[in-house]
């Protein structure tokens, strides 16, 4: 994607907002709300069902009900609705809305005429197929993105990665995911510090060719540091008992509330599937 801004400032802001967002997400995951109290494994499985349902539904009204349910769950989980709407609409659904606009018109989506816009003598025809197709597309995107974001901000990230075991993800992948997650923060801090140092030494006005060289040098340096870090990390793993096979601690516990939630979601999934099938007939 293209961004019209200074790359040094933007890199610092990007790293900072990434770290800030993670702190916010952790804060929400620690609140005592409905979703935070659920077992991460069951929550992950049920949210996958919600997202699959959002992909399967072909009726706009049923999809809107699912989106309303997502917003209600956010409120019940003590998530600030303004924060949640901002977090979910920016960037993917807004981008989807933007790219869906041309699909409204007969030039891109031929069909029955729904409305005609007279633009300086040039008639633009909005078709029924174009309008409802675009509406369904944007609603589907925002609903699935909202469920994915809700899952990630109501669950501690490390627990969410560990919960992947219920999908039979091999332990080696779960271990790599957990380690990768930690390194991302380390690397983000390195980027932020590096660009702050560059800003203080060369300022913000850099010719794009020199800028490209700065970025490439930073990526190369980051890889070199990471590569050298490998040895130290391996020694640290050995000193903690790593013998070639990853061991993931089992510390999740389910309660009656989790099973009740699972039951509710399965019934809802079946109900929505039935309603969807009925709407098609």
């Amino acid at each position, binding site marked *: 994607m293209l961004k019209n*801004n200074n790359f040094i400032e933007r*890199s610092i802001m990007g790293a900072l907002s990434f770290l800030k967002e993670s702190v916010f997400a952790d804060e929400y995951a620690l609140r005592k709300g409905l979703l935070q109290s659920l077992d991460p494994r069951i929550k992950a499985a049920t949210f996958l069902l919600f997202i699959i349902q*959002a992909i399967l539904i072909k009726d706009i009204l049923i999809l809107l009900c699912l989106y309303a349910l997502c917003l209600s769950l956010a409120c019940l989980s003590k998530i600030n609705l303004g924060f949640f709407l901002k977090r979910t609409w920016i960037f993917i659904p807004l981008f989807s809305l933007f790219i869906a606009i041309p699909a409204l018109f007969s030039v891109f989506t031929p069909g029955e005429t729904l409305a005609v816009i007279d633009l300086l003598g040039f008639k633009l025809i909005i078709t029924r197929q174009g309008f409802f197709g675009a509406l369904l597309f944007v609603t589907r995107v925002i609903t699935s*993105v909202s469920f994915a*974001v809700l899952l990630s901000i109501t669950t501690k990230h490390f627990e969410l990665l560990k919960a992947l075991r219920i999908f039979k993800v091999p332990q080696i992948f779960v271990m790599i*995911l957990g380690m990768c997650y930690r390194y991302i923060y380390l690397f983000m801090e390195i980027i932020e510090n590096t660009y702050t140092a560059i800003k203080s030494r060369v300022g913000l006005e850099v010719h*794009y060719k020199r800028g490209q060289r700065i970025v490439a040098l930073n990526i190369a340096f980051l*890889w070199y540091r990471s590569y050298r870090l490998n040895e130290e990390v*391996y020694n640290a793993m050995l000193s903690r008992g790593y013998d070639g096979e990853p061991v993931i601690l089992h510390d999740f516990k389910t309660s009656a509330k989790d099973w009740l939630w699972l039951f509710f979601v399965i019934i809802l999934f079946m109900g929505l599937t039935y309603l969807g099938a009925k709407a098609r007939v």
Partner: protein
Amino acid sequence: MHIPDGYLGPATCGIFYAIMLPIWTAASRIVKKTLKARQVPLLAIGAAFSFVIMMFNVPIPGGSTGHAVGGVLVAILLGPWAASIAITVALVVQALLFGDGGITAIGANCFNMAFVLPFTGYYVYKAISYNASADSSRRMLAAGAAGYIGINVAAFLAGVEFGLQPLLCHTANGQALYCPYGLKIAVPAMAGEHLLIFGWVEAVVTALVVKYLQKEAPEVIEEGGM
């Protein structure tokens, strides 16, 4: 390049999960066989590196900035199979924790960015840099060409995946259920922006990083490509 949830229909998502399953299995087996025990953390570091490369803003003419995917670079540094695992992990973290790329589209995203991109790029790099010494400038050119070709092939496939949706999933009266644009619009849109802009960003970043590593840490280039 990251396909969000809602753009692809359930059948397309399912097919790409089915395609990726044997690729992930093969990648795990091959990497387990070739990777020395002490290089295990390198996969996690490689995954975090793949994640972070996408966060770098690369300046382009006109005062704008773009992003590189870095898949070919990771393949040159780690080898295509290890890169496939590292990029998959990065894409899963992005989709699951940061909402970047869809959860149902992980199969399709991994096919484009963790399979097609690193493998195409890696073999283009290997073919052009065949028999070249670690400090040869041919390696830098090979890396640039590999980055450009790799990202363009991946973008073309993403365009095809988008463009097939109105054909595969629509109502009786022709209303699209997922991505509303057909092949004639989706493919040129995806391919065009990558051929003209993002392909060059990828090429410049990949080539310059290889050049710096050749100069400052040639052993990394020599040891790479497990």
